[in-house]
């Protein structure tokens, strides 16, 4: 065990996976010479050389498109999109090609590609550096969508993603890169894709979240316990595809009340899918409507305004009190 920040855990895991498997390639904008704008790929160029660690031109479409060809020839590409908002430049290759290589070839080709990108906001970036696009990616069958919330999960999920035979969108909490810090097993550590994690036990209400919102939910749970005598369970979904429906249903059957926390715009965000899933699979366990706490139906705002846009513990607490029938 060693305490690492989330970005250190990513960097450490990339070193281990490139060491383990010579087919793993890391490339993207500023990943080699500069070690990535967040240092996630720092040191890889020196260690593994210019054949396996490559700075690409500024072309997201071809960064993803080449991964399709490299995968078909047996490599394991781990390209980086410098900020998730710029995955839109590559959306035709992500949704139409990367996600479908196996399907379009009727099973001929595996597609073991892991696309890394920072996810979400909270650090006053310029436009398009803080997007939360998980719902758009979940609407691309063929992709797996993974969002670690802790450094240990970042390692375990990234290693699993890289070894997975299918394309994974690996979305790293931008705000958590340096803020999130926890114990990370130094040796082999795999967290399976598709298993949610109960971050904290609790009986009155379950707070369901992913990525940076897990920490927001956890802090809300502390407040609920300390100030309102409510025992809140915190469930980190970790992966949206595959979705751990069982864990969601079990949690809701246990608490009867749920709040879903996410930072994307509310309408058609993934929180809606969680609510719909709960209503389909655990309707009769519900003692109150499920509440959503999330971004508003506006584009991610500029620095001066983001604090009012991104969910905070107070909003989660208020929603939890509402679903628990208290003065929310």
């Amino acid at each position, binding site marked *: 065990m060693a305490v690492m920040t989330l970005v250190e855990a990513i960097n450490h895991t990339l070193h281990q996976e490139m060491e383990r498997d010579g087919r793993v*390639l890391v490339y993207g904008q500023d990943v080699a010479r500069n070690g990535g704008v967040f240092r996630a790929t720092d040191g890889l160029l020196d260690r593994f050389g210019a*054949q396996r660690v490559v700075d*690409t*031109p500024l*072309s997201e*479409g*071809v960064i*993803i*498109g*080449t*991964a*399709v*060809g*490299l*995968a*078909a*020839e*047996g*490599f394991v*590409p781990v390209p980086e999109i410098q900020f998730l908002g710029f995955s839109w430049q590559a959306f*035709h*290759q992500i949704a*139409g*090609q990367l996600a479908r290589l*196996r*399907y*379009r*070839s*009727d*099973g*001929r080709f*595996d597609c073991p590609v892991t696309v890394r990108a920072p996810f979400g906001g909270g650090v006053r970036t310029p436009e398009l550096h803080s997007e939360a696009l998980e719902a758009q990616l979940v609407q691309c*069958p*063929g992709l*797996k969508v993974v969002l670690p919330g802790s450094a240990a999960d970042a390692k375990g999920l990234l290693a699993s993603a890289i070894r997975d*035979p*299918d394309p994974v969108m690996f979305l790293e909490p931008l705000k958590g890169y340096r803020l999130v810090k926890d114990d990370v097993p130094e040796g082999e550590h795999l967290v399976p894709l*598709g298993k949610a994690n109960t971050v904290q036990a609790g009986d009155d209400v379950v707070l369901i979240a992913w990525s940076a919102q897990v920490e927001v939910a956890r802090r809300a749970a502390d407040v609920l316990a300390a100030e309102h005598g409510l025992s809140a369970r915190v469930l980190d979904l970790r992966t949206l*595809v*595959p*979705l*751990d*429906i*069982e864990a969601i249903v079990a949690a809701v059957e246990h608490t009867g009340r749920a709040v879903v926390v996410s930072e994307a715009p509310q309408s058609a965000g993934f929180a809606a899918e969680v609510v719909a899933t709960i209503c389909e699979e655990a309707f009769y366990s519900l003692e109150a409507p499920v509440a959503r706490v999330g971004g508003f139906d506006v584009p991610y705002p500029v620095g001066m305004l983001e604090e009012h846009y991104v969910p905070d513990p107070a909003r989660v607490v208020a929603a939890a009190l509402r679903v628990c029938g208290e003065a929310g």
Partner: protein
Amino acid sequence: MSLDLELAAPETIYRVLSEDGSELVAEPPALTDDAVVAVMTEMVKARVANGRFFALQRQGRAGTYAPIEGQEATVVGAVAALDPARDWVLPQYREPVALGRYGPEVLRTYALYQRGHPAGGHFPAGVRVFPVQISLAAQIPHALGLAWALRLKGEPGVACVFFGDGASSEGDFYEAGNFAGVLGAPVLFLCVNNGWAISTPLSAQTAATSFAAKAAAFGFPGVRVDGNDALAMISVVAAARERAVGGGGPTLIEAVTFRMGPHTTADDPKRYLPPEQRAGWEGRDPITRLGRHLEGRGLWDGERRAAAEEAAAAEVDAAWEAAEATTVAPDHFFDHVYAEPTPRMVTQRAELRRRLGLDGPDAGAGS
């Protein structure tokens, strides 16, 4: 080989055969007689397959079809210069009937594709052909990825990607061309300039003096070749391949040809095609052209053509009958989304199977 790609002016069109095929205007590629006859035979097969798939669509048995008529030399000539054991071919959607050199499985697989069968995307392992691509230009970055991989492995192969004059306007073409130049990867960018993108003429597609000229944006050679001259196609693609395998990097090849048929069986060229333009190309049929040359060499005649057509018809019919005989499970679309289905897909599939009564007699009750 006399052809120097570095010096090729992207405005002059490279030819080996005169337009009527009666004489050689440049040194022909070094090929055995059998090899040249094989090229001719493949062109004939493509033409025959073209007629069959067109007819099958009209009969409502096969899906929308994109005819290759007039462009056979571009594709057959190009692949004649490739090594099926080492080189990848990435088609757009018009080329598959002309890829016989990559094995009989190609036509069989394509027949399944035209039938709307999922296996139509699955060229068998070992066959270095990528699935038909409908999303224009999307296959171009894939070709770069394959070529990059070959280079990393030190394998002496190339990726030859076909795309149309229209597809050349997509960002994917330019982004891949630019990155290919930087990597010096062994990619042959084969732009099939057939004059039209559905109803959009060249003049509305680009103001560049040629498509080959676009290579200047990437820092590697661009060359124009007569796409109705099979021998010229072979020479140019062979030279580009040699250069790429030798580490010389990519080449952009513009094959100048013409689409003699409609865009697809759903298209009506009367709405946009000036009749005189098509008429101007009628005298330049690629099969007639190479045929005349081969006749001069005593390698071809009406009899052999008839025999080639007969053999082709038999092969196409067999491929189609096999395709029509190939069934598919109604829930097949769950099979190859992921290596392992997600829990939700398992539920969805079970529901579908129940509804369709695929799990025994008493299943499907109610829904």
